[in-house]
């Protein structure tokens, strides 16, 4: 397994929103979700994740409620708001477009002006 890739700026928020798009989760669940999906390719610092959550809560993209986990532990669950869902859709589209464009440029035949 190669060393994990550093995260491109701004993508952490997007990953978190994606994680929450299905069901509400608490912080560690989100971490696990991201790690599982990326098979360890992405280096997500745990503290950065919480900061992202708080930031998005302030902006009204997610809301948090205290609840209990399967093991009956008190945890803070994050849930996507309507605004958060809209943001996820918009940013995903943008990100895909960006990545496609960049990929097509970088993989094209070299040297043709």
């Amino acid at each position: 397994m190669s060393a994990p890739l550093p995260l491109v700026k701004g993508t952490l928020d997007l990953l978190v929103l994606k994680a929450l798009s299905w069901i509400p989760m608490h912080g560690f669940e989100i971490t696990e979700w991201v790690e599982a999906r990326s098979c360890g390719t992405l280096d997500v610092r745990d503290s950065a994740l919480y900061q992202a959550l708080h930031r998005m809560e302030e902006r009204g993209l997610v809301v948090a409620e205290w609840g209990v986990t399967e093991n009956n532990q008190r945890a803070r669950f994050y849930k996507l708001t309507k605004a958060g869902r809209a943001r996820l859709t918009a940013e995903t589209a943008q990100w895909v477009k960006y990545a496609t464009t960049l990929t097509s440029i970088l993989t094209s035949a070299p040297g043709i002006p």
Partner: protein
Amino acid sequence: MRTPEIRPGIRRFFRLAAKHDPQAEADDEIRLHLQLRTDRLIRDGLSPEAARAEAERRFGSVDAERARFRSSAQRREERMRVREWIDSVSQDVRYAVRTLRRDATFTVFALAIIGLGIGASATVFSLVDGVLLRPMPFREPARLIWIANIADDGIAEWRLQVDHFLDLGARSHSLESMAGYFAYYGTGNAVLARAGETQRLTQVPVTCNFLPFLGVKPLIGRSFSADECLFGASPTVLLTEANWRQRFASDPAIVGRTLTVNDAPATVIGVLPASFDFNSIFAPGSVVDFLTPFPLTEETNRQGNSLAAIGRLKPNVSIETARSELVALGKGLTAEFPRRNTIRPRVLPLDQRINGHVRPALLMLAGAVVVVMLIVTANLSSLQYARMSSRQRELAVRLALGAGRGRLIRQALTESLVLTCGGAVIGLMLAVAGTRFVSHLGAFDIPLLARMTVDARVLSIVVLVAVLTGVLVGVLPALHAPADVHEALKDNARGSTRGGRHARVRSVLVVVEVAAACVLLVASGLLVRSFMRVLDVDLGFHPEHTATLRVDPAKRFDDMATANAFYADVLRRVRAVPGVTHAGLADLLPFAGDRSWGVAGVGQVYARDQYPEAFIRVVSPGYFQAMGISLRAGRAFGDGDVPGQDPVVVVNETLARTLWPGRDPIGQAISRQPTPLRVVGVVADVRHDALEHAFTNELYYPMTQFADHSAVNLVVRTNLPSASLATSVRAALMPIAPEATKNQWRMLQELVDKVASPRRFVVMLLMGFAGFALVLAALGIYALISYGVSQRTQEIGIRLALGASAGNVRAGIMRGTLVLAGAGMAIGVVAAALVVPSLSGMLFGVQWSDPASFAVALALLVIVAAAAGHFPARRASRVDPSVALREA
């Protein structure tokens, strides 16, 4: 995994219930994360210690992160709390608007009365603010004092003689400097000739330092230089901003140009700023067009008491110090210079001199709007209270659903604040219209009126009044909110203790309204009666069917013969106009300025400062008839009173009594060098400065013998409508005095109206307020009685079924109404007796205890209360017992 499904919007209710600590929660969150991570790593095969270390490593520096995390959690919490607060307030407001919309009649009524109340308050405030509260537009106005010269009678005020003015300034240690203006400038004393036309404008001569002294900088150009203030210097003028704008199209190149004023070239040296409005400060209700320099020399000293003087106190010197010093200096100067006029300084703060005469009236109006707002508040409070109790069920449901009592109270307050703020918007529009209307009442003798506008200060007052009213209106109904579900549900107002308390609270509010209306009615009654007395005073002349026109010749005449020929020609032509019954000329009309000097009969000797002072009028033959001033004895002036003949005068009755008490004044002589003046006639006394002032001495000179006058006013008495007469009189004068025909044709009544105008203004406003208060009190009574009747329909039905007559029922309700009104009136009379003595200064011809004013106020209230009670009483007497009982 189980997630509590809680909608974000619901969250706030939990938050209200339990306060929590975001920092502790942040710690919990980190702790859980580390624990879950460690558990996971242990499951993956690490030892517990290694797993713990790895978890902390992955989290980053736990302590540093925890601190950051905590603060970000804290910040997030605060922001969210603010947002939630805003959300909940806007929710309350939306709810209030929905509720109010359902109750459209109430809402429209409430908005209307709040709008009127706030509109009136804001207009009166901007008036009080512009005239009284805001500092005068001068540098450090608090240090400015008005220095007058007390007349021999100890009451009237004279101006200062130039030498006294100079000596006071030089000798005083409490004054930094003094400035002044020539007080006897005549309206229309400057004839401006431009492009072949002449216009009569007004110029005020001021001392050289006048503008720098007041701290007024010319808009363009400069103030007078020392050279320009020497006697005989070539004339210079400063234009007022209005004059510059209206006549010279705000021409920036005006400075340095030469105008022709009074047949001589005068150089324009500057334009005054719009903020310095000489006339609105020193001569309200008139127009000033130019300032010119007034030389302080031996020549001007000979003009006698001519300077209106203003002093500037040195910093930290009190006005009392200056007063005692100036009084002492005056004594010294009078003794030291026996050949000069006497000088007895009277010292006042300048603002008091300028607005002192309107201060009591304005303060009274301010008090009146406070009372009006009180009534508006009581009225709305009572109505809101009634609405709140009819919503007990709704409130109970909300309590049952978990809303706290605090929340209900907040809701009630929000509702009344929404109402008052809505009303404030309407009020503001009314205030804008009101201030515009009042500030353009140019004929009013109220200083600084033009600067009254709706500005930030007025806006903040409006907001303050709206919020205060909202809270006052809301607080009673809010306290009426039920404490718990139980209470709310068991209470259906009817017959219960709460129902009784409800009626009592509203009764108290209605009593307050009636009492307040009573005070306003008594006050306005007193002022209306004073105003009627003022209008009824014996003017001494008859202004009806009489018009005036200035007919000063365009050029000064070289000799009296030419002048007399001109006057005779004017009178002959005007008298020939059909419809003219009498015509005459005078230098000064009543209420249009005055001058006076000491007079004595031949052989009478008075101490230097004891000479009787008489107001001087210079009039032509026919003047007394044209004015309707009756001749009491002797004869009026005739065409034979010309130079070369015996110099003659006419005195008024007061002067005749003053100089020759108990003797026949006809044939007596008044001292004058070289020839004494022979009294040939006695005429009736005339009011000449104010309607409210007593008659004073008057001395009439014939215009045909006495050239010392500065204006010529034609007075025309007619039996035709004035408008058509104006055209024919102008046509008659066209050949001999073309420039005069452009002057304003004024009815004599306008002069009288103008002096009565401030009083009329105050009376009209106060009557408006009192009328509004009366209507509100009536509506308050009506709403309460009518509510009572609807609550008691059942009881009334039973009583009717048991044999009470409709008349009995009606009488019972009317009695209740009148008892309520009576309580209000009793309190109102006592309150009025406490308040109205402070109006004494504004009353004329009536005492504050005037029984008629009180009686009329009480009678009006009884009538209005009876009318307000009549309709509910009639409804009650028509209750159908069978229907009422079935509904029960």
